[in-house]
């Protein structure tokens, strides 16, 4: 029993935190909040050297992890990304790297993984059109051409990193059921509409595919195995999304706790009022719960534990929702100053509210969890 990070992972955290504070702090990105682009390629490439894009990739494709639980290593990075509200598509790029590494052909791995690992290829995941994880929400159609290649037509929505991506992992409905394709962003007929979003710290796009020709060699999976790719991607994204929320929540909670000790009203720190104290205690409990749920999901997925599906659905049910609630509470407890544009709390709140709906919202994951637990409870009572 050691439900905690090991020394190497702690070192990875320290290195990442120091780098992000120096090169990509929230304060340094403030002037960019309303600009069309917040992503900094140099930071991404430097980050790639620190392992941001390598952990889920085998060494033969230039990747490598810190421990024998690469996904847990990645949780460390995602927590640090959340803590400082990083713009970079850590989640989608790693989801795509993982999909290629697990399900891709040798040619596909060779073609894409080294570039992703080096930070040269930024990848984004076109999940569905309506942003839900239901494959029924796909609007993209793939038709087979005479040369065995495909033509993609349709739209994918709510794609983090779409505005800067070099490579898309695209799910489409084909004659053989769902299918996934690797589509370079430069392909003719691909266009991206930048979305105007509640979240100011990341950029999202709607990706349009207008009769995009995709060679047969770019098909990653089809039919049942495409469903596997989708489910695996969703599981990885859910864990990492949870980890970003954990990092953000830990930080915002610490800031708010300090504020409740420093701010004096009625001659005493506001943190001495029980109405506030008890809310702080509840938030402390929820941060612990978010951490426990996320880490267990990461561990279960990394080690392929029997209850991995339930663990993922549990994290998806709870973590982003608890985080969004925490951000609202922190705003409330910070008072008028928390209501200003200058204060960071709204950046956390905006992002948290967005996190909640990106990779299956909590009600979606709860339905999944309900399905799982009821399918294993067979005994009927009189």
């Amino acid at each position, binding site marked *: 029993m050691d439900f905690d990070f090991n020394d190497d992972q702690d070192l990875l955290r320290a290195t990442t935190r120091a780098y992000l504070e120096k090169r990509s702090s929230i304060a340094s990105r403030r002037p960019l909040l309303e600009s069309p682009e917040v992503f900094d390629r140099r930071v991404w490439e430097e980050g790639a050297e620190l392992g941001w894009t390598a952990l889920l990739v085998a060494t033969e494709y230039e990747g490598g992890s810190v421990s024998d639980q690469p996904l847990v290593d990645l949780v460390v990075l995602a927590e640090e990304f959340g803590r400082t509200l990083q713009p970079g598509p850590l989640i989608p790029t790693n989801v795509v790297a993982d999909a290629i590494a697990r399900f891709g052909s040798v040619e596909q791995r060779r073609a894409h993984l080294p570039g992703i690992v080096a930070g040269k290829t930024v990848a984004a995941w076109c999940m569905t059109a309506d942003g839900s994880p239901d494959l029924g929400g796909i609007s993209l159609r793939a038709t087979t051409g005479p040369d065995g290649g495909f033509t993609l037509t349709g739209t994918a929505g709510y794609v983090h990193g779409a505005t800067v991506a070099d490579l898309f992992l695209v799910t489409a409905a084909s004659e053989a059921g769902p299918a996934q394709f690797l589509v370079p962003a430069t392909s003719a007929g691909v266009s991206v509409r930048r979305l105007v979003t509640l979240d100011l710290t990341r950029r999202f796009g709607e990706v349009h595919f207008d009769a995009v020709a995709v060679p047969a060699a770019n098909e990653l999976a089809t039919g049942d195995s495409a469903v596997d790719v989708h489910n695996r991607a969703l599981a990885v994204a859910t864990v990492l999304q949870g980890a970003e929320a954990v990092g953000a929540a830990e930080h915002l909670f610490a800031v708010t706790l300090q504020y409740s000790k420093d701010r004096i009203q009625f001659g005493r720190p506001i943190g*001495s009022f029980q109405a506030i104290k008890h809310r702080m205690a509840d938030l402390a409990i929820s941060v612990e719960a978010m951490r426990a749920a996320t880490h267990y999901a990461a561990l279960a997925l990394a080690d392929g534990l029997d209850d991995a599906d339930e663990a993922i659905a549990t994290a998806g049910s709870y973590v982003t929702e608890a985080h969004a609630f925490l951000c609202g509470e922190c705003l409330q407890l910070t008072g008028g100053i928390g209501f200003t544009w200058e204060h960071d709390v709204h950046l956390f709140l905006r992002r948290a509210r967005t996190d909640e709906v990106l990779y299956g919202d909590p009600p979606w994951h*709860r339905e999944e969890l309900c399905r799982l637990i009821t399918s294993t409870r067979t005994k009927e*009572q009189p």
Partner: protein
Amino acid sequence: MDVRIPEIPASYDAYRDELRAFIAKHVPTLEMKPRSGLRVPDTAEDVEAQRNFVRALHDAGYRQDRFQAHDGDPFEQRILQQALSTVPEAAMGNPLVAGALKLFGTDDQKAKYLPPISRGDHIWSQLFSEPNAGSDLSNLKTRADLDGDVYVVNGQKVWTTWAQWSDYGYLLARTEPTPGPAGITAFVLDMKLPGVDVRPLREITGTTDFNEVFLTDVRVPVTDVIGQPGNGWKVTNMSLAMERSGIGGGGGGAVVGELIDAARLHNRRGRSAIEADDVRQGLARLAARSRIHRAIGHKIATRAAKGKLSVSDAPIGKIWFGELNLAMCEFALRLQGPRSALTEGDPAAYLDGVWQDRFLYARAWTIAGGSNEIMRNMIAERGLGLPKEPRGS
């Protein structure tokens, strides 16, 4: 990261099988209906039957480490704990004094009191709370005045679970008139001494689990002080922390599987409730909280193993468990719809009213052992470093 605990080797299968067979053979049929929580028999016959069962287990070599009387094989202990966790007939009295004796007792006290707890020869209860000292326990007024080689104890205790059948009490009383924690001393109280008057109280559940205890000129030998005089607060805090983590670690609570059964069985608008979206969402919320409870337990166990426990750990576990258990009970009643109005004794009551009893009893877990409000104060003040509550005079 790893949450596995060493797997119990197959060589222990025989131990487990024998234990199960032993329990099945010896477990008594009590008049008392099995209920969740720390529940107390109504009759001396039931108490005697429980005692005989605990003794039989003990004499057959099934001895629990938690009574601090011996150190068993860790794998056997795990099997034993697990097997007995679903056998309420083996739970007798409030044995938390064992931890206090183990840490603070003299060798004589350990030899005299620990083995009989383990063997079920002595039933204990915990005499802490008073009419004016509940959450504010250090405000307790029961006095123990030194008179030669005895303390003369006067005062009143209340909510004392199991007192009506107890042989001994783990008593807190004031040996110095100074207010607050400084003058409090922990004692072993022989409940058969003259001047100990136990009056059972009926609870919201209709059952009688706790009592008032009046203490009038009770003469307690100085050799029955646990730890040093005036040191009782420290002794107590240790055993209360154990009680909280016991609640947080939680047996006795409602479980998700039973909620699924109830949801399948009951209808709404002509369909099984399990098909209703809000029921599915509600079930999943509870299942998630239940799984998270376990994961928080892994976090706490990891910190315990590294000697890095936080003062917030036991309160977090207690709050999470107590509120989850209550939410499950409320959910179970809602699933039953109008039928939830029926309780034990009505032939149409669902499972003879087990959920109605659990629902009522659920508040024990959020009040007893330090209320959840007090737990929140602990997390905020001692865990997070927020200012302490001001105290009135």
